[in-house]
């Protein structure tokens, strides 16, 4: 008996050793703001091309910022991959990022990157109104095409968006409205909108699914996220750009200050700016505009030149992120 029991345990511990014993060319930990399918496919490709082993966690952008801040004395991750640059700007001014100008950033136009190299844009996406066609028909409403439309009483409890504390998408919406209308008017608007909002979700893309499912009537979110849902089978989704004008995000990549694996982090960022890396998105159903001038954006993408975008100041948005979110929290309560 004893021998058998010992044998059993020996087996378990052998398993333990085997599972711990793998070693690779280098290691890298990445915090990811991209869609999970996009992230995993991108990381697999990177691992194959470089032999560097990548661990990743997917979080919403505000969560990534909170985590990097909490870990600043002993950072666990070296790269922050994806999500609106506003949050990156705030992290830059908090000293959480490390400047790195990749040789490949020459392919990225200046408007899509930080002049000091703290973050570099990898994709662009704009905010849109996303509604459910059959719900609109049931209620007898036209497709909403302006911010003002969402304040109609018919939308009560049927509007959904994310919580700007956790979601980069939602903060882009908040910053867009403030830049479009001015701070006071924007908060007036948001207060009225709050009456119609059913719930504020953690992640920025979830509202699109709830509109697709018919749980809510209209979502404010990124157009490319809605497109992804449409392709997945939510054929009732209608995407419109508000006629007053809309804001856009620059999805970014950055190096985390004092992170481990500096060289691997550089390799990763260099790679993420390449044409090949950026084009992975469209093969996994992600339809952002790409920033690399040689990369071919998905044909479904919303080109900024074709829609009414405001002159969105990402640096301003990042600098004011903490203040605006605090005011928003006060207002929503």
């Amino acid at each position, binding site marked *: 008996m004893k021998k058998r029991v010992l044998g059993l*345990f020996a087996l*378990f511990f052998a398993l*333990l050793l085997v599972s711990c014993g793998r070693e690779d060319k280098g290691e890298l930990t*990445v915090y990811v703001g991209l869609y999970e399918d996009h992230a995993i496919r991108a990381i697999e490709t990177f691992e194959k091309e470089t032999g560097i082993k990548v661990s990743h966690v997917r979080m919403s952008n505000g*969560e990534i910022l909170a985590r990097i*801040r909490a870990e600043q004395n002993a950072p666990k991750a070296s790269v922050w991959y994806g999500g609106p640059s506003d949050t990156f700007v705030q992290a830059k001014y908090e000293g959480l990022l490390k400047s790195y100008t990749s040789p490949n950033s020459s392919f990225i136009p200046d408007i899509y990157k930080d002049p000091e190299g703290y973050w570099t844009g990898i994709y662009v996406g704009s905010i849109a109104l996303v509604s459910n066609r059959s719900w609109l028909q049931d209620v007898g409403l036209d497709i909403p095409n302006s911010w003002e439309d969402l304040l109609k009483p018919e939308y009560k409890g049927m509007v959904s968006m994310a919580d700007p504390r956790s979601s980069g998408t939602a903060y882009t919406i908040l910053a867009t409205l403030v830049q479009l209308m001015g701070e006071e008017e924007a908060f007036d608007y948001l207060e009225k909108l709050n009456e119609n909002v059913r719930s504020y979700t953690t992640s920025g893309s979830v509202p699109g*699914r709830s509109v697709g499912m*018919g749980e809510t009537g209209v979502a404010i979110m990124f157009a490319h996220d809605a497109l992804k849902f449409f392709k997945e089978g*939510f054929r009732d989704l209608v995407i419109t750009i508000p006629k007053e004008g809309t804001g856009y995000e620059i999805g970014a990549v950055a190096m985390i200050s004092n992170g481990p694996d500096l060289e691997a982090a550089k390799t990763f960022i260099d790679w993420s700016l390449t044409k090949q890396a950026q084009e992975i998105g469209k093969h996994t159903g992600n339809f952002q505009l790409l920033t690399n001038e040689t990369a071919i954006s998905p044909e479904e993408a919303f080109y900024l030149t074709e829609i009414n975008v405001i002159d969105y100041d990402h640096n301003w948005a990042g600098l004011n992120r903490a203040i605006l979110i605090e005011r928003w929290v006060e207002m929503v309560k």
Partner: protein
Amino acid sequence: MGRVKPIQELKRLAREPLLLTCIILVMASLFVFIVYPLFQIGRTSFFSVDGSFSVAAYKRILSGGNLLTALTNSLVLAFIVSILSTIIAYIFAYTIAYINVPLKKLFNGIAILPVISPPFVIALSAILLFGRQGFISNHLLGLQNANIYGLNGLILVQTLTYFPIAFLVLAGLLRSISPALEEASENLGASKLKTFISVTLPLSTPGIANAYLLVFIQSLADFGNPMTIGGNYTTVAREIYLQAVGSYDMQAGASLAMLLLTITMVVYAIQKFWVGKRSYVTVTGKPTSGRKLIDSGWLKHMMFGICFSLSVTVILFYILVPIGSFIQLWGINNSFTLDHYKYVFNLGQKAIVDTFTLSLIATPIAGLLGMIIAFLIVRKNFIGKKTMELVSMLSIAIPGTVLGIAYILSFNKAPLALTGTAVIIIAAFVVRAVPVGIRSGIASLQQIDPSIEEASTNLGANQSQTFFGIVLPLIKPAFFSGLVYSFVKSMTAMSAVIFLISARYNLITASILSQVESGRIGVASAYCTILIIIMIISLLILNGMLRLFGGEYDKKTKKTTNNPAGQKPLSM
């Protein structure tokens, strides 16, 4: 066992170095993985970031706002769910003990489901049935505005999840009530109803209280259901997670955790030391004679009807998830698809492998540790034994989210920088699973005469030979049920480990949660289905191994002892 003076005790221990090492190791691990983390929560909740003492965080919670709402919401929910669960469980238990109905095996089997089920199954099914595109709400009733997310949904889901726990308590109690008193009552002319109200019901009050409190604790600590179906109805376990992981507000998280822990501990203490001690179980000195079961009348039909329809409902809830995993988009595009499984196998492999490996490592550790602690508590005398017993048993009442936040607070810096490693996840698995092993180990050992171990020692065997050669084989059923329980609990663990997963290790339950959060019910269902299949296969293999390893001394065991067969590790 007589009291021995401390000095003599020490001398005796010094003669048994192996025992001494064992005690020290167990004590040290209990301290590091249970006492110290809880102490850290308390400390974090009382000291602000700059190191000064403040009760600001508690003030913030108790002065109102969403944190207080979360606390009161949880209490309201637990209050309602415990009442409903206890009533349903009583109906089940009464039917099985008092009425002659078919399908008793089925009704009993329902009680096992929540123990082995991943935390999301019932909530996911509730969404499939009652959500906006739900089968019942939308297609059968044609409701346009059904809202399962919130208090109502939580009550439904938690009641279905937790009534079996109450059932286990009540079934055992009703079985042990001697029919003699009830027969006496009826012989004296009381009607069946009168007998029930004045004899059976009073005799079962301690069990009812017990069941109520156990469900209350479970409901308070529940994390998976509120995350899935809570909607805007925030609860405390979920709020701890959002504060700690979402916004990294450790002080707020820790204070909430302290409040939750205090409430749970008080409820647990009431259950354990007050209600638990009151037993009206009738001692007659004779084995309980068979009860004459109610065999006809409207009562039989009604009770059978209730139990049957509830069982069918529970089973339906479990079947829906596998079905949902093959549907393209539930309610919108109901065509068959394998896409969700493709997604899981393409992108979720790592989580599956990690969960399986880590559970496999935690299982023998938890199983063996449980038996060693049980052995020390029942058979040995040493300083601190009472403490060891108390700490190891109380740990069962620590809510998972509390343990999770305690671990990130305790193990993020040297000398115990364990966050991000496998060790911390395994430790959480073990701590969550071991109390049940200890309990069944103690129950087993108490029925075994220590003279067999003494004989072994007298014949010259050392402590370790005696433990592995005599004790472990004797309490084999408890040991193996401890192993099975540990494995099942680790595979389905979420509330504690959700705090501990890192870039390096991911778990199936965490993947399910993130799919649920992003609304991909199909993929979440596919993950759940795979998890259930892995568990069933593993349990079958484990069972086979037990046969293989257990066969040779089975007969011996039965001859020498009252074999403590059928130890059920299920009750809390």
